[in-house]
Every structure is written in C-alpha cells, then in structure tokens.
C-alpha cells in the first residue's frame, strides 16, 4: 500500500475549510444544490488598502453612525451623503468585483411587486403621458426606503470584508470603555461575541449538512400540511439538540482553560487615517441633520 500523507480527522470540516460558510437556502427546490456555497457570512477579503489597515473600531463607529443617521433623517439628501461615504469606502478598499453577494431570486420579485404597488398608489408629483396620468409620489418613497436598506447593508458588508474576524470583538471591547465605567459586564459580552463569531462557521456548516440530509431523505410522495409541520418540528429539534451538544463540548473546553474568557488585548494604533474617517463621519452626520428639511 502506498504511503499516505498525514491527514486529519474531520471529514465534514474539509468542506468548511475553503468553501466556507455556505448555506443552501433553497431547500424547497429539487435540483438547485449549486447555491450551497454561494452565500458568505463574515468573510474577510485580504487587502492592503487604507480601509483594510484602519483600526476595526473606527470602521465599527463609521458603520454605526451612518446607519443611525440614515434611520433618523431618511431623506434623499441624507441618502446622497451616505452614498458618497459608502461609495468612497468601496473605492478606497478596492475590493474585487466577485465579492458582491448573489441576491436570492425572490428579492427581485419583491422589488417588482413593491414597484407595481408604489406606482399604483400614485401621489405627487404627476407626469402626464398622453392621456395617462402617473403619480410618482409612491415610487419616490419606495425607492427611498430601498436605498436606505441597501446602503446600510453595503456598509455592513464593507466592514466585514475589510476586517479580519478576530479583530472585531477586541475592538468592541475597547470601544466599550464608557460602559465598563458603569460597571456593566462588558468583557463578558465581548467574550460571548468572540465565541459567537468563532462558532458561527461551525453552526452554518451543521445547517448545511442538516439541509442536505433532509434533501437526501426527502420522500417523493406529496406531504400534507400536518406532515410538513411535523417535519419542521423535527428539524428544529435536530438543530437544537446538535447545538446543545456542541455547547457542552465547548463548555468543557472553556473549563479546561480556567473558565474565564479573556480576549487578547489589542494594541492597534489609532492612526491619522482613523481620525480622518471619524471626522468625515461626524461631518456626514451633521450634513444629514442639517439637510433634512
């Protein structure tokens, strides 16, 4: 027998190693297993741009303030200000085009239905096309709503694509100093966040296997609503039972480390570019507030 190279244990792991945190969402359909690894959650795209080198905390503040600004002053002017900031971030980060997530098909359907409703609803301003009068007031509101949602999502993705996962929790811990002064258990929460980020790939992988296992055992007969409800309950039970077993193992591992989560203290410097971004963000917020009228 030929010699075999040193290998490892976990077969399922092999899939998660590079292919990553895929979720097959379209379980209902018969022949669409391609979607399995097309969806990525919290994945870092290596790079050396200014956005990449920035302190993770700065990017988190940026993300939080712009989101809050858009929520508080939802106007086209605010969307314009936010859009400039998000686009600027993307230009500086120079991310490859392939990072763009493939949106689920139903989003387009939803957009189409929403579009139809918005046009049907009418409202000022009106445009006359021959004898037909179309009101664009509804469409205006509809588009504004979607632009805000897209900008917030794009910013969240930009932050996660340019920040190594391991940097997120320590940065939150450093940002949490005012809460720590209030004697809130900031470190405990930050420890839980770090552990959540660490376990998310494991759970996504289990979700993927669970959904594949269901596909493999799907019966060809039509199922009644009651059977579907039963199937859903069983699925939840399987997921829960797995998660709790996983938690038990992790608890043992924590105990074997003395039981106290400590995040490696982070020492990332707060450089000039961080200061510039914070200043720009604050200026953007002010602009959104002033331009709201």
């Amino acid at each position, binding site marked *: 027998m030929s010699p075999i190279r040193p290998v*490892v244990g976990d077969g399922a*792991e092999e899939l998660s190693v590079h292919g990553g945190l895929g979720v097959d969402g379209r379980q209902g359909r018969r022949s669409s297993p391609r979607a*399995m690894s097309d969806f990525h959650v919290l994945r870092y795209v290596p790079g050396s741009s200014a956005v990449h080198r920035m302190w993770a905390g700065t990017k988190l503040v940026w993300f939080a303030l712009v989101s809050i600004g858009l*929520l*508080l002053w939802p106007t086209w002017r605010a969307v314009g200000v936010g859009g400039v900031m998000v686009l600027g971030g993307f230009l500086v980060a120079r991310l490859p085009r392939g990072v763009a997530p493939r949106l689920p098909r139903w989003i387009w359907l939803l957009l189409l239905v929403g579009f139809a409703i918005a046009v049907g609803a009418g409202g000022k301003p009106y445009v006359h096309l021959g004898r037909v009068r179309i009101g664009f007031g509804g469409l205006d509101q509809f588009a504004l709503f979607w632009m805000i949602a897209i900008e917030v*999502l794009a910013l969240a993705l930009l932050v996660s694509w340019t920040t190594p996962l391991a940097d997120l929790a320590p940065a939150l811990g450093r940002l949490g100093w005012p809460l720590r002064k209030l004697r809130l258990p900031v470190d405990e929460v930050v420890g839980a966040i770090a552990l959540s980020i660490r376990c*998310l790939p494991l759970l996504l992988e289990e979700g993927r296997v669970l959904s594949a296992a269901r596909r493999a055992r799907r019966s060809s007969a039509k199922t009644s609503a009651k059977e579907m409800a039963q199937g859903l309950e069983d699925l939840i039970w399987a997921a829960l*039972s797995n998660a709790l077993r996983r938690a038990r193992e992790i608890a043992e591992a924590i105990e074997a*480390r003395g039981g106290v989560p400590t995040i490696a203290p982070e020492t990332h410097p707060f450089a000039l570019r961080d200061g510039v971004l914070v200043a720009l963000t604050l200026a953007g917020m002010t602009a959104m507030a002033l331009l709201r009228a």
Partner: protein
Amino acid sequence: MTAAAAADRRPPVRHGPLRPSELAEAAVLGDLALVMEVIGWFAPIGVAGIFQALAVIPFAVLAARHRLRAALVSAVAASTVASLVGGIGIMVPVAIASGLGLSVGIAFRRRWSPLVGVGFTVLVVGVPLAALTDALDAASAGYRKLSFDQIRILWNIVADLLKGIGLNSLERRGTYLLNWAIAHWWASLPLGEIVIIALVAVGCIRLRVFLVEVRRHVPMPVADEAVERRRHRAAGGATAHPEVPQPVPVHLEHVSYRYPRAARDALSDVSLTLQPGNFLAVVGPNGCGKSTLVRVLAGRLEPRSGRVERPGPAGLGLVGGTAIVFQRPESQVLGVRVRDDIVWGLPHRERPDIAGLLQRVGLEGFEERETSTMSGGELQRLAIASALARSPRLLVSDEATAMVDRPGREGVVSLLRALASSGIAIVHVTHRLEEAALADEVLDMSGAAHAESSVAAAPIGSGLALSPKPTPRFRVIPSKTTGETPPPAPPGSFASSASPGRPATSRRGEPLVTMEGVGYVYAQGSPWAHRALQGVDLVLWRGEGVVLTGPNGSGKSTLAWLLAGLTLPTEGTALLEGEPIASQPGRVGISFQHARLQLLRPTVMSDVKLGADEDRARRAMLAVGLDPDTMGPRRVDDLSGGEQRRVALAGMLVRRPDLIVLDEPYAGLDDEARTSLARTLEQLRRLSGVAVVVVTHDLDNAEVLGERLIHLDDGRITAEEALPGRA
C-alpha cells in the same frame, strides 16, 4: 410534578460571572437563532417568515435553562453579530426574537400561568418597542413622514379596491380612522405594536410544550455540587491567597463515582499513582468510565467513595495546574486566530512565548492563521500548545487521537512522550492498545465496560438474517466476491435492482455511476473561490466496494457529496445509470460523520421507518446490527455516535438505495465497533448488491471494505489500486 423535577427548573448557578456552560450555550444558541434568521432571508418567500419566527426558540431554551444574565448576554452578543452580518435588517429581527424568547423562557422557568406570561412579554418587549418607536418618531419628523406615507400608499390601494366594488361607506370610515390614527400617531402606533406583540405572545404559549421536551431530554451540564461549592467559597473568600495548584503526584485509592440519579457507577474501584514525568495510558472500549476518570483527575468531580490525594488543588485550566485536550478538534479551539486561541483564558499578565509554543508542537509560523482553516491534526496540536501555555504539571489527553488518522496519531503520541520526558505528568486516554506502547504504565479499564445495547457483536451472519428474528441462516464466504457467485439474496432482502443469483459485483453491462471530467469549485467567481475537484473520471459498478482516501483538503468529502447527488458538479457530468445523480434522490444514500444531523425523528424506529412501513424498518435495523425491539423505542439523542451511524444506515436501507456513501464512518469508534461496522458493510454489499463507497483516511480495515482503493490528492485521482481482499 415531583419536587425533584420542580427543582430542575432552577438554574444550577445563581450568582457571579457566567459559568463555562452558560457562556457556551449563550454563544451557540444565539448563533443558532442568527443562522435561522439568515436562512429565512434566503428561503423562498413563504418559508422565510417561519424561519424568522423560529429564531425565538433558541433564546427561549436558553432562558428556560439558565439565569437571566446568560440570556441577556446572549441577546446582546447575537444582536451585535447580526448587525455585522447584515446590518439593521437582520439585527432588528434577532433583537425582537431574543426579547420574545427571553420572556417566554423566563415565564416557563418561573412556572407562571400563560396569562401572566403573555402580560410579561407585553411588558418587557411590547412596551419598550412602543417607547422606542415613539422616541424615533418624535426625534425625526422625516422618519415619521416616511412610515406614514408608506401606510397611506398601501391604504390608497385598498381604498380604490373598496370603491371599485361599491363599498364606499367602508372606504370613508377607513380613511377617517386612518387619518385619526396618523394625527394621533403617538398613541396609535405604540398601541398597534403592543397588540401585535400580545398576539405573538399568545402564539408563543405553544412553545411551552417544546420547552418541556427540552427539559425532559436534554441534560443540564454536569456540575458537581461539591466542586461548585468549593469554587464559590474560593471566589468569595480567599481570592487574595489562591491556593497554588499542585495536581501531581496524585494518588487514587479505590475511587468510585456515580452520576446523580444514575443506576450504576460510571467509575468503580480505580486505584493508581501518578508521579511528575510519568506517562500513563488508560485504555478500554467506549463506555468504560475513562472520561469520568479524567474528570476525577482534573478535580471536576469528587469521588463518591475512595480517596484522591494530591499535594494541592488540581487547578484545572490554571497556570501550573491541570490541562485537558479533548476528542473533537473543532470544538475545543476557542479563538478565531491561532494567536487568540493560545492566550484564551490566560490572565493578562501572562505573556506566553507563542512562537516557541507553536514550534514545540510542530506548528511553526501559524500565529496568524484562522483556526477555521486548519485540519483536525493541526487543531489537536494547537490544543496541546494552548494547554502548554499554562505550564501544566498534569496534561490529560481525553481520546485526543480518536478523530485523527494514523500519522497524525503517531505525531500526537510521540509529542506526549516528549512532554513526559520534560517532567509533565501525562495521562493519555485511548481505545487503541498500540498507542499505549510508548507509555510508562497502562491502566486497562476494559473489564468495566458496559455493553452497548446494539447487537453489533453478534456472530457473523446473524445480523444479516433479514427476518424479524435473527437466526444464523447464511454461510459466510470467506473469500473475495469478484468473479465468484455469492449466496443468493434471501427472500425479502434489500436486493435493490440486482436480481437474486446475480454476482454482487458485476462488470458486465452498464456501470452504475459514471463520472466524466468532474470538477468542483466552491464559491465560483468570488474572491473565496476554491477548487476542490478537477478532472475526476470514475466508474462504479453495481455491488462494488470502493475505499476513497486522501489527505485533508484533497476533495474526498466533496466527491462524496457529488456521488450522493447533494451537489451538482461545476464541470463535467455525474450520472447514475445515464441520468444526473442529483435528479434521482433516494437512489444514493449518504452517511455523514456526525450522524445525528441526518436523523430526523426523535426515536430510532420512527426515524428508520420514515417513508417505509414498520416491517421494512425492522429488517433494515437487523441488517445493520440493531435489535428493533430494544433499540426501536430509544431516543436518538441518547445513543452513542456509533449507534447513531447505524440508525442512519438503516434509514438509508429502507429506501433500497443502489449506492451507499459513508463519510468517515470510523471516526470516534473503538476497535470492536469498527470491526463490527466493517463486517456489516461487507455483508450488506455481498447479500443485497448495493455498492458501497467508504470515504476515510483510516485504512486499518480497508481490505474488508472493498476491492478498490482510490487515492485522491489536491482534487485529482492520483492512484488506484486493487485491495488484496480478506485473508
């Protein structure tokens, strides 16, 4: 309900920082809710809402099992991670689900009546939500206008519809009501939200049934009360003068342990002595009490009888104390990055020499690697490095080699040997006798084994008797089947489409599976694109046994998924009798390494007979060596990993597959269970004409499993050889 059961609802811990089990469940259950929310986003539109509503359940379970502090930490952590994953669109649903789940779980734990529970939910979720909405609306006229315009737009459509069908008066009243509500938005909006939350809370009452099930069937974390009390005393009083850990030399004298409410001792009458620098191997099959012994040595359990003598406390996880390396590699690595994992849990003043530690375990230069990209063998070495960062005096390996292949195992064992020589006391728990050879002393616990409840060890042939009562009806042919005529399949066997009397392995006629130029790229077109397979040509014949092997990352698991039709190849074709495999569900069965994930019903029999009748299910269970009468009613969650794998196998057999794919079927099994599983597979193949592909890195029993061995490396088939067959 009895007093004991009522006491169960109280969380075992009530004060102070989170305990490990609370922290772990807070993180994992919060993640589960987040995953459900994400799946909800990607599910077809009708199912999406269901998944998002289901995200309440993990939080409810957490709040029902643990104190408020754990539930709150989980809610905050999950919401934060959710906002990083997908912005406010995912954060808000997760936050609302956490609030709902929290209140449902607390109401359950405190045994409130459903009415009080609903009131509580409204108070802790509905009222804050209403207040937040009001605050947001009051602060931002723009936001108010946006949401009201949306409502008006929707109403205009309904109004037009009403006017169209002649319900003008209804339309007028509706418009009046809407105008009133918008004029008094500060009252109408919060009121509406509170009503909605109250309705949802009424719906959540049904969750209580679920929580009862969880409490009944999922054990609370093992917490030894004596140990917990001692820790509490230490935390309350003597923190200024902590006792210095002195785990060795340790002396155990007639030590026994029985878990609370267990029928028999998990560990009985063990005596041993361990000096610094000793290397003790503990061997024995699954279920003989090895893990309990580890817990006693680590000071996590106090023996019920007998004595444990050591100079100071065991100091589990403390510097200079006891360290443990566990079985499953990916569960014990806690850091996102290698560097984070090593310092995880260390006091800040400790600055370990990370590079030196990594070099010591053979992982030079791994500091910045993300742990999710490492192989199982590498993760076990990292776990040892993290243990060494605490300069332990006692290092325990609790089956650390069980999920690692032979070269990986040899590496870990020789590392343990070297550490013993440097003065650390080593305890290595294993079910492999050959690993004990390097040890100074061997403790054999096989006498204490409790028999598994399967009939796995039944004599060859009897397990295959496909009638309800096992009787040894078949003669076992001790030679290879190729070219010979195997015994005819018994009536009512699982002969799929192979007719009785036909050779099990037939190279005449059409092949069963044909793969031509198959390639697979994960995340094609994205920056994370990774090629797993390239140009794979593979033909499988009916009744054939094939062993697929290769190093980690060679693409063998991907190939298993393609063979099972769970994934479509990105290049080439994968056909089963001329049709794409993926379009013929049920003809190929796949067994995953973590079999629990593929068991869909709560009990063994109900799972196996999914999609078949009970008679077939019984015969399938016998065919894989499970007694339907004793195993049938058992809960799948109570079974060992090996037993779960057999149940999954039976669940496949009832569907009469033509091909069965098994991904790492041996992981975590002891020698006896491995031999018996290999025998079961061989007989299945021989008697029912089903082809079997075993994907494994473990070639110890390969010749029993098939005629061909295929090596995969870097996504290509690099070698193919005939297996010698059984002696």
